[in-house]
């Protein structure tokens, strides 16, 4: 290995990597199977290739690209919350119906009681918090396995939904603010402004981090690499915005349709906040610790019960957001809201992204990437004109194909002793 400057971390001797050695190291890690998000990204690329070849004009259109976001948004929000629960090795089977119940709470307040969005949405979110607390309490303090608690909740919430909806009616939502959430776009100007702010923010945090380490004389990523990352992110973000700010209306004459969908910054903000919480705060550290080894965490004085409750609270809260987005997209709530495949898709999103069902391993970005995989499959399948039977079968196969990219790379990891 080529080494140049040698710095000391405290007292342990380590080597300050150069751009070259950093890249070599990364490549060796990848070859060793430690590929992080790369698998999900590769899976996405594979899917884009499959559907891009099968339906080039439609699948790869700007319209379809923008649809992807609102189609996937609800599941992604729910999956983000589930990541926390999964990090503790728990499960929340009721997350889907929690989203339905919270969506219904909002819809009932808006449509039947004439509340406005700025009161109805907070109440729906609080409903999520309360639900999460109850589940967390039963799991953590009473000690019932989360599978059973949330299965019970899964059943009970279907009932609550029916009761809320007066036995099964379909409640329409007309509040323009709520409807805009999942269905409208930002203006082109706003889109670009936000993109620039995001990239600048990213660059700043990267620089500050390196600065902090340099000033302590700790090993840090070489400046070249930091630059590379920032440029990479900038290209991705700007390319995305460029596509989404093109005119994509079916009838541009009647109706111009351009700009980044509003859900995109919503997802981005949620992902950034939760990533920050998980990776930069004590709380996040403790979540990983409890998930990795509850006993060790307890011995380190971490209030494991409170952490356990909190992840269910976060999960149900995010489910509430997911429910609001779903209600916005459907502009209505019905007794099926949050049912059928919503939960399985959300868990699958997290798992495909790389979150472990056994706890201790996972990131919020997994939910986003995995959710994207799920959304792309659903979206692409929708363009294929299969019969119901064939469609189910192909969806299963494509899901398997996307997941095996990840599995095959991780098998390498097992072979080389990494985990």
């Amino acid at each position, binding site marked *: 290995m080529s080494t140049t400057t040698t710095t000391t971390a405290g007292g342990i001797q380590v080597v300050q990597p150069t751009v070259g050695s950093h890249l070599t190291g990364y490549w060796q890690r990848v070859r060793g199977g430690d590929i992080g998000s790369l698998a999900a990204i590769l899976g996405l690329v594979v899917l884009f290739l499959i559907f891009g070849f099968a339906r080039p004009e439609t699948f790869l259109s700007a319209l379809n690209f923008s649809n992807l976001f609102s189609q996937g948004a609800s599941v992604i929000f729910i999956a983000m919350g589930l990541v926390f629960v999964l990090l503790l090795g728990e499960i929340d089977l009721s997350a889907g119906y929690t989203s339905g119940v919270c969506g219904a709470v909002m819809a009932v307040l808006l449509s039947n009681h004439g509340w406005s969005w700025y009161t109805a949405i907070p109440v729906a979110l609080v409903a999520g918090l309360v639900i999460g607390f109850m589940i967390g309490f039963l799991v953590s303090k009473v000690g019932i396995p989360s599978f059973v608690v949330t299965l019970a909740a899964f059943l009970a919430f279907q009932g609550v939904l029916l009761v809320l909806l007066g036995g*099964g009616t*379909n409640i329409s939502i*007309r509040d323009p603010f709520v409807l805009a959430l999942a269905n409208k776009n930002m203006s082109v100007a706003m889109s670009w402004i936000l993109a620039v702010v995001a990239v600048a923010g990213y660059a700043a945090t990267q620089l500050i981090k390196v600065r902090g380490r340099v000033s302590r004389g700790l090993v840090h990523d070489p400046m070249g690499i930091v630059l590379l990352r920032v440029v990479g992110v900038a290209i991705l973000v700007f390319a995305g915005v460029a596509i989404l700010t093109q005119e994509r209306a*079916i009838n541009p004459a009647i*109706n111009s349709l351009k700009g980044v969908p509003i859900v995109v910054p919503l997802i981005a903000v949620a992902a950034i906040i939760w990533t920050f919480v998980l990776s930069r705060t004590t709380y996040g550290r403790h979540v990983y610790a409890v998930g990795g080894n509850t006993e060790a965490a307890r011995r380190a004085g971490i209030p494991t019960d409170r952490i356990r409750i909190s992840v269910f609270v976060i999960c149900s809260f995010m489910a509430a957001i997911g429910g609001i987005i779903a209600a916005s*997209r*459907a502009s209505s709530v*019905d007794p099926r809201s949050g049912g059928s495949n919503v939960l399985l898709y959300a868990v699958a999103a997290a798992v495909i992204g790389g979150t472990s069902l056994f706890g201790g391993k996972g990131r919020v970005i997994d939910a986003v990437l995995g959710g994207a995989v799920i959304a792309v499959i659903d*979206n692409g399948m929708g363009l294929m004109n299969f019969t*119901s039977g064939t469609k189910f079968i192909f969806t299963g196969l494509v899901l398997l194909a996307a997941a095996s990219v990840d599995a095959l790379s991780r098998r390498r990891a097992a072979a080389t002793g990494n985990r």
Partner: protein
Amino acid sequence: ACGNDDKDSGTGSNGGTSSVGKVGVILPDTASSQRWGTDDPKYLKAAFDAAGVQADIQNAQGDKAAFQTIADGMISSGVKVLMIVNLDSGTGKAVLDKAKAAGIATIDYDRLTLNGGADYYVSFDNVKVGELQGKGLIDCLTAKKYTKPVVAELNGSPTDNNATLFKQGYDSQLKPKYDSGEYVKGPDQSVPDWDNAQAGTIFEQMLTQNKNIKGVLAANDGLGNAAIQVLKKNKLNGQVPVTGQDATVQGLQNILVGDQCMTVYKAIKQEADAAAALAISLAKGEAPTTATGSVTDPESKKEVKSVLLTPKSITKENVKDVVADGFVTKEQLCTGEYAKLCTEAGIS
């Protein structure tokens, strides 16, 4: 939904002779349509209460094992009449057979159990429902004067036999148009479990695939609304006619605004009253006189004594009929921005 069903009437096992028996009703689910959760239990209960007949009305929540378990429970609690809306003909038949073996009179409500051999059948004509939808769409497309419009079909659940019958009905109207080249057949997909959220994605993809869709045959109001939301997003609502079924508040409102072309109103109260009347006379040990019609079971080829009601096509012009019928109240329908439209449509 029901009152206490205790002590007073004869307990099942000795049942059968003189006293008024109990009636068991099993509804299928609460998701395929709101009617099973709200309308049917309400009307049925009212009818039974009025006649002073005890009724146990339950819903199987779409779970066929639960459907059978409920039937077992009703049989063992000694009902004299069993009325079912099957989830599928197979379990329906299993339940009917068990009931008949226990000497219980049986009624198929709304959905005919194929080869089930129920004593009576009360329903709307489901193929007819589809036909009305097909005709309705054709009318709206004609009014829009589209030439060679592309028609998309958003079918009901692939696992619901009624959905198959609806499709049979509307395809019988549309197919000649496709064949003659008057219309162009667009995407044609089923929506698993009638799930509205999935319907939204499915229709969005239909539209992405074929931007020229000019008409949508949606099998019920929930699916129709899902399609309308997508059209709205693309500012195409109102220009692309969408059909529906069930005359839900949402559907009727969509019609008032002009986003939905039509819906099919099935006068559920009439259906419930007819079925309850049958059940009541059976429970009293009388021979019913109302089942004058008959339907041929396509599988067993046997005749089933029936009451068949006619579904009604609803457009902007006759939305008021639904309100007049008491199926939907003015308070429910004419909220907020719809008040004005209600007045325009002559609803008072």
